[in-house]
């Protein structure tokens, strides 16, 4: 009877297309908005993912990665002395203004890396050699800095600009993930970063560390907290902490959540109503099938097959359209769009729920159907 169910579904072309459009739109909306939302969340923790180290040691009261609370410079040695720490290096992170030769000012995030290891450097270099950062006055820009500061025609390897009246010479362009604030990143050594910025009593932003191989990272983190009185997090936990801060302190979560919920409700309403209409208009046919010996279970299976067939088709089309949207608009990482398998799984569950509820309404209607309807 599966064949009959599918022929019935595809045969009523207008309703089939309406169902398909409703579900496709619903899936597309949820996936598109969900991907943008997740993309924004990834951007919000870009400062963490770009550094890519296992342990971050911070001020104990820190809320999120971009809200730097400086700690004493002795913290590096204190962390190094904790049992189970393989290495620990300082990281400077702070806002500064860059003055180009043209006289234009641009706000930048200055990132100072420990010079002997360059731990925290970006993985990919687009132009030049990152190691040249050790040369006098050398800095490395990320690709967004080039874009924000005027483009490759104005800023390139060899370009000279000023940071707090001190000379900075671009020696390389590195590739990083765009950040939520979209402020360009300028890399230099930790020592030189301290020379660029105005003098402060506490200049150290973070200590980056790694646990010795074979040890449980969470245990080492706990020891760092206990022995230094500082905050310590895994890269993942610090990222989650930052995401939670963004969700709590901005309207992003509510805005995207509302749109995603709307997509779900619209999909549910269109699918439920159309599917119910489809069943009601075919009541005599279903009654005839029941009279001819089709059991309630057979009819329920037919309805479920119809619902899930159109649902999964809409799922595929919706994801396809959302992906094309993402491909066209978010090429090169200029817009946040991260389509994860977890999101697709969640959307699949949401869609199956929509289909199951729609089918259930029809199944209840059919269960109450007296086959004698065919004689009326």
């Amino acid at each position, binding site marked *: *009877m599966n064949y009959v169910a599918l*022929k019935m579904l595809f045969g009523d072309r207008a309703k089939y297309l309406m169902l398909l459009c409703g579900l496709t739109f619903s899936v597309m909306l949820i996936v598109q908005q969900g991907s943008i939302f997740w993309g924004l969340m990834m951007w919000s923790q870009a400062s963490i993912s770009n550094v890519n180290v296992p342990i971050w040691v911070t001020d104990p009261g820190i809320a999120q990665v971009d809200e730097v609370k400086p700690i004493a410079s002795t913290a590096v040695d204190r962390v190094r002395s904790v049992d189970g720490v393989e290495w620990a290096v300082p990281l400077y992170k702070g806002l500064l203004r860059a003055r180009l030769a043209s006289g234009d000012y641009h706000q930048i995030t200055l990132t100072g890396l420990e010079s002997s290891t360059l731990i925290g450097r970006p993985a990919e270099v687009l132009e030049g050699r990152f190691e040249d950062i050790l040369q006098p006055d050398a800095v490395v820009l990320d690709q967004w800095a080039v874009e924000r500061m005027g483009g490759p025609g104005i800023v390139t390897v060899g370009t000279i600009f000023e940071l707090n009246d001190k000379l900075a010479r671009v020696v390389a362009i590195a590739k990083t993930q765009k950040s939520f604030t979209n402020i360009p990143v300028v890399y230099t050594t930790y020592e030189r970063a301290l020379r660029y910025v105005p003098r402060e009593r506490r200049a150290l932003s973070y200590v980056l560390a790694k646990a010795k191989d074979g040890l449980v990272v969470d245990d080492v983190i706990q020891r760092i907290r206990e022995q230094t009185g500082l905050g310590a997090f895994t890269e993942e936990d610090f990222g989650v902490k930052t995401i939670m801060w963004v969700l709590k302190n901005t309207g992003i979560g509510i805005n995207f959540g509302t749109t995603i919920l709307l997509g779900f409700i619209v999909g549910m309403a269109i699918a439920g109503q159309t599917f119910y209409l489809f069943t009601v208009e075919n009541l005599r046919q279903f009654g005839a*099938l*029941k*009279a001819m*010996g089709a059991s309630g279970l057979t009819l329920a299976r037919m309805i479920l097959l119809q619902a899930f067939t159109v649902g999964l088709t809409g799922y595929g089309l919706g994801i396809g359209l959302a992906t094309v949207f993402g491909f066209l608009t978010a090429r090169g990482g200029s817009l946040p769009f991260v389509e994860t398998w977890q999101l697709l799984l969640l959307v699949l569950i949401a869609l199956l729920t929509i289909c199951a509820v729609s089918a259930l309404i029809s199944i209840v209607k059919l269960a109450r159907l007296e086959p*004698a309807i065919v*004689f009326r």
Partner: protein
Amino acid sequence: MDDHTQPAAVRARGIVKSFGTGDTQVTVLRGIDLDIYLGEMLLLVGESGGGKTTLLSAIAGILDIDAGDIDVLGVPLSRLPPGKRTVFRGQTMGFIYQQFNLLPALTAAENVAIPLLIQKIGRHEAIQRARAMLDRVGLEDRTEFLPKNLSGGQQQRVAIARALVNEPRLLICDEPTAALDGPNGQKVMALLREVGRSPDRCVVVVTHDSRVFQYGDRMARLTDGRIVGIESIVREGTA
């Protein structure tokens, strides 16, 4: 045909059926006793609202009765649980409706194959048997047509083929000629008559159409929920 040598295919005793409750309750069948024999075509006739279709539905086991017993082919149908009744119906009965009730998205052959598909017969074999049945009702050149591309008479013949493809022993027909013009109605009744002549089958037809009375073997007249008379039909040249 009053003196039947064939066993009763349907044996109904004391059938009562009401709809509604309290002041709005309407009793549609008031103690019906009826036997229908193999090898005959019984016509159920009478005024509108007399209970013909309700009785037909009860005999088919698609409507629960309030009192009485209905045995079909020796099985106490009215006492079977709904699930078993459905299976029994699918195996032993065929249905022909006034409105045909063909599935519009399915071809004639696919429509005819439905009872076989319900019985879990493979699609390929079901379609082959459906085509053979359409051949028997004279629609061999319309097997791939959708119902909307068939005339009313052709659609009813498809419905007849669908009702017969499972080789049912009891054929239940509700106003099979109501939606057809005179000549098509005659053709359909002739076809049903042929089925009714088979010694291991019987046909029950609810009809208003006096032009087709001649095709029946007996006629039961229902008025106000009671059978007021059963008469044998004498055809020209057979009296």
